[in-house]
């Protein structure tokens, strides 16, 4: 019986190639989008799940009334001896960027030396490898011994060009120069690159134990690894023994903390490792990447697009299914029961779904790399099947197939044989309103997507064209050196480089600063106020940026009042004669105007220390130091011979040759330091990488949604034309023109698009307003622009719909009227 049904289902699909084709393509499109989005959702939902011990792994997080942080002190970690249930305490010290050098043995030539600046390196203990599931390709970890290290396959290849022969790397030594005393580390193990869906990332791990030797600490006494050191600079995790309650360990920790420091207001928590990326909910107070939001958005869009495809299937199948009513009527007449008829239809649906799924899998495979580059990710189908959410997604897809298939089967098999045999089934209004509703839903979604895309694109355009209050064009940024010989005969070589670079003919101006626009500040601080200020003023936060006297002119910022500081305004020892504010600081400090502020004093910290009083020498007009996501913050600029970054205003010509000249100069004066040069506008635009991706995604899914909707509309228009063939024949006999018939057939559907427009506008307005709230500076939807966006979205959808319908209607309108009448 089943093979019989399968055969029948196949024949039925084959005979109706047109509808089958539209159905398969529509479903496949929806499924493709669904699979891509589920890859994304699964990837994020599955973060840190690859650790075998994931259920027993927790990050130590402390909370105070001011907030939470994941740093812990050696003093707190001494609780190990007094706390039950702890199996291991994997401990890291991160943000240890530095210059790493490999000098091959027996080679004296400097050209053989390999040097890179590394950002993703850390110090750690051997418990890391007891607790986390990082796999070794060669050797092993021995981080409890000083001067040992582990690196990833990528790092091994980068420094040692070892190919796949990782064993050859074992025992090799790297010199690490950073804030600590330059120290050599021997490689004891090479591990696989850390999976991308791990919140822990990095390429090198040095033994933390090395820093237990005070000689290796340099003057960083804060990093002493002794139980009486209360400074919190470590990130630590706990691997609990089976059956241990995390909450009880956390309570013991908090009690221990109180015992060590009765004045502490820190409460300790154990954060399950899997929730570090997603958060434990939308309002998880512990620090996390809040990826849950993106997962929910992705899953929602995925289900939405998939529903669009199923709606199509329902629409087309019920519409064209009416022409199958005769067959069903005949079957019923000769004895078929409902179940006899439902099963073959379900099988048809299953076959369509399988065909569409295969097509979708193929499409996903083909387009994966384009999708990944659009998203800046390395997703693959494996993620969908790897984690729970993907399984649920596949279940949802099956359920959708079953529901829509059942609906179609029930509608179609519901026909009464007597109605069919009387021959007027095609005029039955049954299901017409359902189909209209579904078309409205499809177009509402499409219009919302189009509007969303237009708004995202407009916002991106707005951001890249807004006057930032400075000029980033033809501005080159070179990273300052980290390896500097302080006792150079000619003075600080970094400053020598600055002087020499300024003499190059293509360099118009150069400035040194500790940080740069588009990236950040030196630090932020409270406690800055006017001498006459209220004590509450001390709680206001300011951003501090140290820069030399050329900073403002190089970046072409404008002074509202006063002027910039002089080199001599830095008195040494963090004492300054005068400072520059931006307008936001002026307002926050309570001055009425910039002109009132200039010449006044502000103080930082203890008011009795006169040296901590700074005179305001100028107020620079507000500029966007960070992206337009952030509001302009109060900044205080301190004069400094800063060498963190050099920003150079250069001429337009011969960029490559000039760059080479700069690099040569840099390497000559600052040997051992890698030369990194970027353009300031690229750095600034990099902040919008994610926003550009959102825009790309929106555009992609708008196209998909509208294509799916149009496929459905095309099918329905074909059906409408078919079922109104006689009417059209009669109208033509009576003198109707082709145009009037196209209008007749199109109007019905365009009305639906109009209703969809009315539904889509408020929904899209609400959603996109929420999205725009993420930007301190954004386009305004309650404006001419907003009206334009929504109206044009409606027009675009209506146009596409019209073209789709008109193509079909034209064919019908031009058909010979006599044929139409004879057909009936």
């Amino acid at each position: 019986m089943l093979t019989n049904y399968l055969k029948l289902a196949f024949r039925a699909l084959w005979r109706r190639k047109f509808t089958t084709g539209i159905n398969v393509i529509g479903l496949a499109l929806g499924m493709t989008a669904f699979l891509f989005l589920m890859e994304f959702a699964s990837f994020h939902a599955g973060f840190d799940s690859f650790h075998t011990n994931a259920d027993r792994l927790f990050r130590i997080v402390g909370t105070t009334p001011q907030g939470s942080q994941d740093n812990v002190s050696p003093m707190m970690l001494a609780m190990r001896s007094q706390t039950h249930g702890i199996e291991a305490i994997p401990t890291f010290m991160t943000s240890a960027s530095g210059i790493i050098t490999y000098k091959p043995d027996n080679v004296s030539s400097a050209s053989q030396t390999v040097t890179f600046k590394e950002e993703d390196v850390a110090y750690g203990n051997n418990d890391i490898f007891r607790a986390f599931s990082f796999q070794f390709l060669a050797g092993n970890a021995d981080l409890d011994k000083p001067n040992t290290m582990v690196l990833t396959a990528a790092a091994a290849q980068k420094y040692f060009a070892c190919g796949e022969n990782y064993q050859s790397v074992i025992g090799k030594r790297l010199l690490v120069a950073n804030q600590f005393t330059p120290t050599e580390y021997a490689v004891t193990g090479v591990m696989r690159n850390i999976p991308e869906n791990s919140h822990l990332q990095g390429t090198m791990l040095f033994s933390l134990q090395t820093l237990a030797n005070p000689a290796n600490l340099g003057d960083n006494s804060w990093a002493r690894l002794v139980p009486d050191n209360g400074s919190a600079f470590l990130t630590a995790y706990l691997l609990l023994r089976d059956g241990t309650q995390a909450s009880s360990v956390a309570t013991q920790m908090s009690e221990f903390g109180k015992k060590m420091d009765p004045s502490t207001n820190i409460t300790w928590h154990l954060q399950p490792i899997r929730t570090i990326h997603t958060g434990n909910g939308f309002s998880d107070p512990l620090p996390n990447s809040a990826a849950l939001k993106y997962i929910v958005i992705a899953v929602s869009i995925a289900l939405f697009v998939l529903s669009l495809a199923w709606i199509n299937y329902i629409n087309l199948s019920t519409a064209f299914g009416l022409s199958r009513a005769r067959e069903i009527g005949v079957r019923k007449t000769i004895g078929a029961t409902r179940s006899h008829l439902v099963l073959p239809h379900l099988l048809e649906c299953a076959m369509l779904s399988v065909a569409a799924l295969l097509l979708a899998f193929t499409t996903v495979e083909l387009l994966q790399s384009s999708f990944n580059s659009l998203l800046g990710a390395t997703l693959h189908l494996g993620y969908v099947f790897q984690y729970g959410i993907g399984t649920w997604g596949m279940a949802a897809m099956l359920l959708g197939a079953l529901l829509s298939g059942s609906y179609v089967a029930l509608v179609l098999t519901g026909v009464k044989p007597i109605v069919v045999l009387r021959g007027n089934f095609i005029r039955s209004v049954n299901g017409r309103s359902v189909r209209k509703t579904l078309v409205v839903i499809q177009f509402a979604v499409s219009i919302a997507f189009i509007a969303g895309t237009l708004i995202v694109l407009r916002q991106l355009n707005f951001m890249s064209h807004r006057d930032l209050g400075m000029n980033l064009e033809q501005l080159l940024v070179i990273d300052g050196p980290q390896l500097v010989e302080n006792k150079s005969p000619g003075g600080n070589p970094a400053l020598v480089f600055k002087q020499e670079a300024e003499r190059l003919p293509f360099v118009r101006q150069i400035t040194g600063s500790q940080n740069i626009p588009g990236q950040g500040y030196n630090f932020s601080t409270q406690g800055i106020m006017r001498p006459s200020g209220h004590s509450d003023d001390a709680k206001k936060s300011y951003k501090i940026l140290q820069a030399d006297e050329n900073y403002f002119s190089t970046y072409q910022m404008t002074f509202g009042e006063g002027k910039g500081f002089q080199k001599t305004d830095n008195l040494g020892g963090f004492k300054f004669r005068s400072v520059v504010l931006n307008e936001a600081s002026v307002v926050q400090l309570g001055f009425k105007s910039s002109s009132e502020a200039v010449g006044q004093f502000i103080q930082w910290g203890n008011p009795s220390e006169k040296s901590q009083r700074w005179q305001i020498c100028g107020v620079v007009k507000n500029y966007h130091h960070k992206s337009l996501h952030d509001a302009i913050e109060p900044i205080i600029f301190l004069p400094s011979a800063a060498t963190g970054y050099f920003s150079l205003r250069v001429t337009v010509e011969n960029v490559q040759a000039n760059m080479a000249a700069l690099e040569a100069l840099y390497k000559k004066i600052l040997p051992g330091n890698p030369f990194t040069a970027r353009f300031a506008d690229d750095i600034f635009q990099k902040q919008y990488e994610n926003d550009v991706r959102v825009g790309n995604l929106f555009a992609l899914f708008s196209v998909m949604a509208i294509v799916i909707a149009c496929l459905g509309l095309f099918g329905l228009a074909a059906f409408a034309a078919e079922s109104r063939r006689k009417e059209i024949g009669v109208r033509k006999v009576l003198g109707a023109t082709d145009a009037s018939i196209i209008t007749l057939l199109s109007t019905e559907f365009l009305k639906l698009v109009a209703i969809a427009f009315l539904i889509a506008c408020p929904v899209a307005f609400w959603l996109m307003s929420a999205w725009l709230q993420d930007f301190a500076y954004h386009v305004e939807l309650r404006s001419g622009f907003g009206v334009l966006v929504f109206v044009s979205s409606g027009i675009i959808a209506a146009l596409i719909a019209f073209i789709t319908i008109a193509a079909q209607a034209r064919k019908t309108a031009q058909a010979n009227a006599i044929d139409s009448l004879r057909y009936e």
Partner: protein
Amino acid sequence: MIKLRGIQKFYRTDEVETTALNGVSFDIQNGEFVAIMGPSGCGKSTLLNILGMLDNPDNGEYHFYEHEVAGYSERQRAELRKKSIGFVFQSFNLIDELTVYENVELPLLYLGFDAAYRKQRVHEVLEQMQMMHRRNHFPQQLSGGQQQRVAVSRAIVGKPLVIFADEPTGNLDSKNGSEVINLLTELNKSGSTVVMVTHTPEFAEYASRTIHLFDGQVVTENFKSTAKAA
């Protein structure tokens, strides 16, 4: 045996009520060949639909053998219909996706017979109708007469008590039409009860009795001692 008493059927639209059948009463005995005749719109097809249990009367009694069908639910009618009635339509109503063999097999499938019996019975009927050589063809590959022969095969394959034929010759030329009438006559001779709606007086001659309908009422019943020889 079939017994109709005072059968009424109305069709209603929003404003108009049309009487399709107005107090139709007659009996059909086992083994009879009855023709129903009348002008267009006289209610012939409505009557056949009620007789064939595709539709319920609005008033009156319909006894089909031991069953009082008039009050049956659609499900009950369907159950009785599939066991005891075979249909032949003017437009054949074969299923395009199915081969000749599969079309004929369909009623047996719905009756739940096993594969071995189905195969044997379908072969038997196709042999009888001389359609065996066409068993793997699809309906659209056959001539009209052949299609109707398949339809007749399908009607009789389940050994129904009664065969209802709604203008079975209406879509056929005279030669093929005669062939189909001969088939029905033979079936009748071998014991089947046949009820046929027709426009063609010549074909009605083959029946043992003709019921004339006019405006939803039986006007005459012509009995014949002997039906026209095949």
